[in-house]
């Protein structure tokens, strides 16, 4: 029992990331009718927002600390981050420590601008083009963005630590009444799950309870009619694209402490997120979320030592296998509607 709970918990963080990316993909897909192969790179861009901010806060200069000496007896040279010099050691230290959550503030405007520029500058011209062209152009864009990240940040993963307060793990098992040390769970993963839940809830509430959201949902159901009603659907769709980019970016920011950001992380997540979207049912927002968590948890179970011992490498392919089975049994996905993108 405790082992099962542990695997479910382990699946939550990856599942959250899948769900957030898939949610953005579905939003773009449902509203604009565009399959965005560059969406995974937006996730990576978010993660690199965290990398950038941490690097920015940690930028330091050398100074000589007269009060201390190194092992040769000379005065000790120390690196002092600028932020500590400017704002004092306490505030500066907090800034550096909390750079990942703070990067959210950076990522929101950056990702919104990236998303809006992408939509206005490129995607907009592809609404009337065949789907194949949309896929191809966003695929090219994904390669370009990925290479730009590589140019600036290099090919190696860059670890980004979480704030001190959330570093380390806690014994979740004891809290649930199991033996100690059966369910050890890192704090940050719990934070990530909570964060994802808040964003997902926020998006659903936004679509449900605001006029804007109502129009977007109407547009997802029948774009032409909404356009005929005299509502400027284009502007709203631009905003939706920006929003989806922000969601992907935030998913990336907070994911940075879990897996060190790497320039090609976006594409790996994208392929899996597509699978998530297809399993969930194209065009279905709840489907995307459900399938995201489901596949994350399934993947986590497949990564258990006992399972791998039985079927080596199953963790690498389980998601695809599940996707194939789902599509064979339910070609429309778990919660897909009839007639979405079936032309």
């Amino acid at each position, binding site marked *: 029992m405790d082992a099962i709970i542990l695997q479910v918990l382990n699946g939550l963080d990856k599942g959250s990331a899948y769900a957030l990316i898939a949610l953005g993909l579905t939003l773009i897909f449902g509203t604009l009718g565009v*399959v965005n192969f560059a969406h995974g790179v937006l996730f990576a861009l978010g993660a690199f927002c965290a990398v950038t901010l941490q690097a920015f806060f940690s930028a330091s200069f050398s100074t000589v600390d007269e009060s201390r000496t190194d092992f040769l007896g000379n005065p000790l040279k120390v690196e002092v981050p600028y932020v500590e010099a400017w704002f004092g050691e306490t505030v500066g230290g907090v800034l550096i420590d909390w750079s990942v959550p703070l990067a959210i503030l950076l990522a929101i405007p950056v990702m919104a601008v990236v998303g809006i520029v992408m939509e206005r500058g*490129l995607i907009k*011209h592809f609404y*009337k*083009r*065949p*789907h*194949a*062209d949309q*896929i*191809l*152009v966003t*695929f*090219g*864009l*994904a*390669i*370009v963005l*990925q*290479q*730009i990240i*590589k*140019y600036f940040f290099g*090919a190696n993963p860059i670890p980004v630590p979480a704030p001190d307060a959330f570093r380390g793990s806690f014994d979740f098992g004891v809290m649930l009444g199991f033996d100690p040390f059966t369910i050890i769970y890192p704090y940050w993963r719990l934070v990530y799950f909570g964060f994802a839940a808040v964003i997902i809830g926020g998006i659903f509430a936004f679509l449900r309870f605001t006029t804007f959201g109502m129009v977007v949902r109407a547009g997802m159901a029948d774009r032409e009619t909404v356009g005929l009603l005299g509502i400027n659907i284009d502007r709203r769709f631009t905003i939706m694209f920006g929003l989806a980019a922000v969601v992907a970016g935030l998913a990336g920011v907070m994911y940075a402490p879990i897996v060190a950001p790497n320039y090609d992380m976006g*594409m790996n997540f994208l*392929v899996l997120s*597509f*699978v998530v*979207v*297809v399993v969930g049912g*194209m065009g279905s927002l709840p489907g995307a979320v459900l399938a995201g968590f489901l596949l994350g948890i399934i993947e986590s179970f497949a990564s258990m030592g006992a399972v791998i011992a039985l079927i*080596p*490498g*199953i963790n*690498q*392919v389980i998601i*695809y*296998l599940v*996707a*194939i089975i789902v*599509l*064979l049994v339910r*070609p429309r996905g778990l919660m897909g509607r009839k007639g979405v*993108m*079936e*032309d």
Partner: protein
Amino acid sequence: MLGLNRKDLTLFLVVLGLVVFAPFLLNPFPDASGLARFNAGYPDLMQRFVIFGIFAIGFNILFGLTGYLSFGHAAFLGIGSYAGVWMMKLLTVNIVPAIIASTVIAGLASLVIGFICLRRSGIYFSILTLAFAQMSFALAYSVLTPITAGESGLQLSLSDPRILDGAAGNSIPAVNFFGITMRDGFDWAMGGWVFTFNFGYYFCATLMLVAFYLSIRIFRSPFGMMLRAVKSNQQRMNYTGLNPKPYTLAAFVISGMYAGLAGGLMVAVDPLAGADRMFWTASGEVVLMTILGGAGTLIGPVLGAGMIKYFENIFSRLNERDLNAMFDFLPDGLQGAAVAVAQMFVGDGWLLTLGLMFMLVVIFLPGGLVEGGQRIARLFRRKRPARRGPDSDRRSPQPSPHPGE
């Protein structure tokens, strides 16, 4: 002749000429000159031209004719490669069984994968093929290590059984075609030029010509017409008493076999099969080759494959020193800046160039080079009355709006 009409025959003979005389045509600059780096007439690169030509010709049968955009064709390339190496390990280092096995096994794999993926169309299909390719990559890279040798790649070894040509000797015999090794050939020095004639290249080139010929036959056959009908209007097809599914699946399998053949030839010229050739970038590359040349045209994929492989070769070999030399004519400050910018695009940055090319072609030239050529030709022909002919070489690469939109 050959069952082709005059236009197609001319096209075929042009390609034949280009392929046969490639060692000359691709070496226009004398060896000693500074421009020699832009030569492409050496065996390794020429082999890649024709092998990827085969890959792209096959991909075009699926994408160009039916419009089904597969993002996973590199999987069949990889499967073909592994099958080829295994044949060499188990049977003989003669490449014939290897190439046959590559084609057949890739064909079987594409039958299974195609059957599943073709349950859906459009975007779903693209995503499913991409997922299958990534799964194949993961399988080859880590899960099936006993079969694929994982990260290090599958290669020949002394302990191979090689049932047909025995395991005698202290060294692995060279891969050959009935005794002629793929490396055989001769150099021909003439003036400042050295032309290399390599058996491996001509072997692959022959197969490419066969592949190209078959693709012309398919394009002009009733079957090819049905494939274009699949792309044009499946609803009408259904109500005309035709079942689009088996047609599309047949196209998928044919293109998978072409990919397998290309994979087999890759290991025939260099008996090493690695998982990286199944990666999604490899699938993307063949898509780019096809659209760069012109999807749905006969010659397009061959041109596209040649172009991409040529630029890949040139760009990825350029380094900082070359760039400095190139921008030498600029004043110092500008030179530095130009080199810094250009560096993003060369060497490891080749992928960036590839991505940009991808975008530019899709945005500005959806019909590819063939359409570009036709546009230019039309400019020169303006004065004559516009000809409305069957225009049979170019099949609707133009962005056609969705029916009913």
